[in-house]
């Protein structure tokens, strides 16, 4: 039966290819949109609650949160690194982690962030360890950076602007575990390493600045107190007389706002997907019914030579099940391929898309599409069986 179903399908290649394409596009788009929306949602949620507050230059609080937690964008406004000492003097502050960016990249692709080993304290390592804050010229690389560049602990890398790399070698001392977050695609080094690189580049005077401080306080009240205290503060550099207006933000509340916006986007995406899916249900049903109509001659032929309606029904259900299975598998494969291709876009939002991640609702969508592919055939053959009469 199965073999004959395949042979019978082979003689209707074009019709079958059209059905498969229609299903692949509708199901693929639906599960891709849902998967991306969910992964971005998950990615943002996973990091948001880790720090009590973020201190950085006055400006967009969302930018500050995104730049600090997901290393998005290229922050140009900075505040003096020396302000860390002032922050530590506050009794509410337990830990301050500086974040600096020098503008240089690794292989013209991966962002280099200057920080302290504290940033990596809660991260798992694939190999090696965090760098030593007391020394310099050491780097910890994200999982994707290491994988794509065949890096191992002990290797030397160069950081540069554009395609140029600075002369100084930096030693890889650690490779982070894969986290499907922005950490996978970043190179971390000591803050002072970044400054050295700039000095080696020939800059006469380079400000020892950072673009943010991630802060953990002793308790929640301490965070609120600090935010009230630090907001609208202006730091004055005594040496140069430069002023730095700063802001302090609570990352959770900022990200909650971002998530609310994303939630709306996700809802709109799902509604659009539902419309696409509904349109395609119609198309799939019409194509299937037309196929069945075209097969009427074939069915009457089989009936005349003595094939029972039960066997004919089974034959067509097998055929459409094969189409359904192939289509849903292709839709799944196509969605994973798109995830892979779109991961670069998602990285801008601080999320590394994991093409291996599968949400239960995706399974439900695929199952629904499979049922939609097979159901018109079952209805059609059932109605044919009811009206079955060779006398016609």
């Amino acid at each position, binding site marked *: *039966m199965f073999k*004959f179903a395949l*042979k*019978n399908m082979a*003689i209707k290649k074009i019709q079958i290819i059209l059905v498969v394409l229609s299903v692949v596009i509708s199901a693929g788009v639906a599960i891709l949109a849902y998967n991306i929306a969910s992964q971005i949602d998950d990615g943002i949620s996973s990091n948001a609650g880790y720090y009590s507050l973020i201190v950085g230059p006055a400006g967009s609080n969302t930018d500050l949160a995104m730049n600090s937690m997901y290393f998005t964008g290229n922050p140009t406004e900075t505040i003096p690194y020396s302000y860390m000492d002032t922050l530590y003097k506050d009794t509410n502050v337990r830990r301050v982690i500086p974040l600096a960016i020098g503008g240089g990249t690794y292989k013209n692709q991966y962002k280099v962030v200057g920080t302290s080993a504290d940033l990596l304290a809660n991260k798992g390592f694939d190999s090696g360890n965090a760098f030593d804050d007391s020394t310099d010229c050491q780097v910890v690389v994200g999982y994707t950076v290491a994988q794509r560049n065949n890096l191992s602990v002990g290797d030397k890398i160069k950081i540069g602007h554009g395609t140029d790399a600075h002369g100084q070698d930096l030693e890889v001392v650690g490779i982070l575990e894969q986290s499907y977050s922005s950490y996978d695609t970043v190179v971390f080094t000591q803050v002072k390493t970044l400054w050295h690189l700039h000095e080696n580049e020939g800059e006469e005077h380079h400000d020892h600045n950072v673009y943010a401080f991630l802060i953990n306080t002793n308790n929640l009240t301490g965070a609120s107190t600090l935010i009230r205290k630090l907001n609208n503060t202006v730091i004055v550099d005594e040496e140069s007389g430069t002023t730095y207006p700063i802001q302090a933000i609570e990352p959770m509340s900022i990200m909650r706002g971002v998530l609310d916006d994303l939630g709306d986007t996700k809802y709109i995406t799902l509604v659009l997907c539902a419309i696409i899916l509904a349109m395609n249900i119609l198309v799939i049903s019409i194509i299937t019914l037309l196929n069945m109509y075209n097969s009427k001659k*074939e069915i009457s*032929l*089989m*009936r*005349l*030579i*003595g*094939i*029972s309606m039960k*066997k*004919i029904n089974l*034959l067509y259900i097998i055929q459409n099940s094969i189409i359904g299975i192939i289509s849903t598998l292709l839709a799944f494969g196509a969605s994973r391929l798109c995830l892979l291709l779109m991961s670069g876009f998602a990285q801008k939002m601080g999320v590394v898309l994991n093409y291996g991640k599968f949400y239960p609702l995706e399974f439900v969508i695929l199952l629904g599409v499979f049922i939609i592919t097979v159901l018109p055939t079952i209805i059609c053959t059932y109605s044919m069986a009811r009206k*079955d*009469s*060779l*006398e016609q």
Partner: protein
Amino acid sequence: MICTKNLSKHFKNETAIDYHDMTFEDGKSYMLLGASGCGKSTLLNMIAGILSVDSGSIEIDGVDMSLKTQKERDKFRIQKIGYIFQDFKLIPEMTVIDNINILRLEGVDTSGVDEILAKLEILDKKNKKVKHLSGGEKQRVAIARAIVKKPDIILADEPTGNLNFAIGEEVIKQLVEISKGKTLIAVTHDERLSSYFDYVIDMNEMTGGRRDV
């Protein structure tokens, strides 16, 4: 043995055909001759169980087929009857062998197909698509499909209707030869083919003709 008694068939256009009683003996070949509309094909279709019987009976080996349901008649047809259609009833996009193996859907053993195709001189066409065959070759494929299940009864409805006389004669010769020992009932217009059959039945005489009801 096939026996018909008081057989009649009504159609939706309100005509009916009444048949005289007939008996077809096992292992003999019969040619049904007659004008169009005299009920030759209708009789064949009723024997095959494709059409139901409105009144009277058709007994095959003592079993009254007129009392059987469509499903039971289908089962009987696939097991016991080889039916050859005038328009072949083959799937043109499929190969010869696939058109014959379609019977496997109902569990029919088609293992002897090569021998039959060889006897019908179309073994070399086995893997060709039916749409690429000539009319005579298509009819031979239809014969092979009817014969392969080793039926007790072979019914042929105008098997030469779409063929010229020379090819038609060749097909009938092969059909009679390959059906030896089985009951063969063939409907045809062409009296010139009568010499190949054991009996010739003039259906104009065997039916009470068409009547309006």
